[in-house]
């Protein structure tokens, strides 16, 4: 469970995100939508700890993590798949996963589990991640985050810039994850139709402020489109 209370985030003197209140309930799935530049990624980076919240509070499972380093938040069950298919380019696919599995009691098991989820990676284990295609790298990024055994998963535009057949596969995995029940999901997504199908609550972020929110599902499509058209 993740709660943001009155969170401001900015870069030096410019505040980009203003007083955001947002709750991802335990086992729930929340979509954040908004145009480019609305502050979605900035908000997520603050939730993970890559950017400091200049005011407000961030609670993870009830614990105040506002000033905590990202790696410690991850140890407490926060998982983050950043924008842009990021990987460790000089490490092989397997090393990208091993790196996260190291020191975990179920490490080996977790790696084979995520390889079952993304079978396409199985044939690429010894290839350097920098040589994978964008779609493969994104699958690796989600797989790597799943190895951290998150209870709260944050995904930043997981299907952006990826070939359509892989998008379908990734959407399928995300939909399955949101159905798992023991995992909370916070999804930032440009593709409104998919985001609403996969989640049960939506927030619309415009110019750094939440301008509307409500129950998700296909019925909310018109309301979200209207909110984003403003």
């Amino acid at each position, binding site marked *: 469970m993740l709660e943001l209370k009155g969170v401001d985030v900015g870069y030096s003197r410019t505040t980009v995100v203003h007083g955001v209140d947002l709750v991802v309930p335990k086992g729930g799935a929340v979509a954040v939508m908004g145009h480019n530049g609305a502050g979605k990624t900035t908000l997520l980076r603050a939730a993970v700890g890559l950017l400091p919240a200049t005011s407000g509070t961030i609670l993870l499972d009830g614990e105040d993590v506002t000033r905590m*380093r*990202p*790696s410690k938040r*991850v140890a407490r069950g926060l998982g983050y798949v*950043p924008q842009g*298919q*990021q*990987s460790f*380019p000089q490490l092989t696919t397997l090393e990208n996963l091993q790196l996260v599995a190291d020191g975990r009691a179920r490490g080996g098991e977790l790696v084979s589990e995520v390889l079952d989820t993304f079978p396409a990676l199985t044939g690429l284990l010894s290839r*350097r991640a920098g040589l994978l295609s964008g779609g493969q790298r994104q699958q690796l990024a989600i797989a790597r985050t799943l190895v951290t055994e998150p209870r709260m998963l944050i995904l930043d535009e997981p299907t952006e810039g990826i070939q359509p057949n892989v998008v379908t596969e990734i959407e399928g995995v995300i939909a399955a994850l949101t159905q798992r029940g023991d995992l909370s999901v916070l999804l930032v997504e440009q593709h409104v139709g998919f985001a609403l199908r996969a989640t049960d609550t939506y927030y619309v972020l415009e110019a750094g402020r939440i301008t509307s929110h409500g129950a998700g599902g296909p019925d909310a499509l018109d309301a979200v489109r209207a909110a984003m058209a403003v």
Partner: protein
Amino acid sequence: MREGAAHPRYSLRPCKELDVDVVLSQVFTGISIGSVLLLAALGLMLTFGQMGVINMAHGEFMMAGAYTAYMVQRGFPDEISLLVSIPIGFVVGGLMGLLLEAVVIRWMYHRPLDTLLVTFGVGLVLQQLARDIFGAPAKQVRSPSWLHGQVDVFGYQWPISRLFITAMAILAVVGVAATMRYTSLGRRIRATVQNRDLAETVGISTRAADRATFFIGSGLAGVAGVLVTLVGSTGPNLGQSYIIDVFLVVVAGGIGQIKGTVIAAFGLGIIDSFLSHATSGSVAKALIFVLIVLFLQARPEGLFAVRTRSLV
């Protein structure tokens, strides 16, 4: 007509004969020089190459390693003191690096010029400290008797002590390469270097990875310092005499590339040895500078560059 005018190209100085023996002996000398460079450059490859920290006090960590060998010799018999000094030198260098990282460098990541100046200052302080503690005159570290003598390699009398340095340099390369490639610590260090934010968000403590990198890199400088006592005397300026060459090796090899560092160290050692033979030590030094500047003009990324489809 003046004598010699017919051969103006040869009139400056007599040309030394370059027969097979001379070539071989220069190659072997070059390998010895290269081995010392390699030991010192390996640590710098980690701290400068991997982490981007310009640590001018790296040479002084070598000096600390050399003085460690001197101190250990006072408590242990000559036969084993060198072997005892190697791990202790590693820890001494490593701890100094850890301290420098914690007190100074961690506040200056991404500020290379500040780091350069401050660590240069730290280096000067350490030199003065050595002068205060051990005195300005150089100290002699006795080498164990089992390193005395020569081995005949294709007619070249290779001193066993230099052969030992080469062996240790190769051992260090293999050790570092294996650690980086096959251990979880190595994976964490490489991940942190390649994408710091991403490393944090998959749960890696990048602070711990930084500290570990600095400990190992500085520890290797300490080991290099212990071993250079076999080929020279130990004084407060020991580090200064190596630091520039060592940076050259790391830059020419391609930042953060073990393979490149190895080739650059031996290459530089051998070129230095031939040029010193053909000219003089200081001319050779100047020529090497020119060669490296030309080389970096043609290949700014060094011998080996990182190849990837995307750099994210």
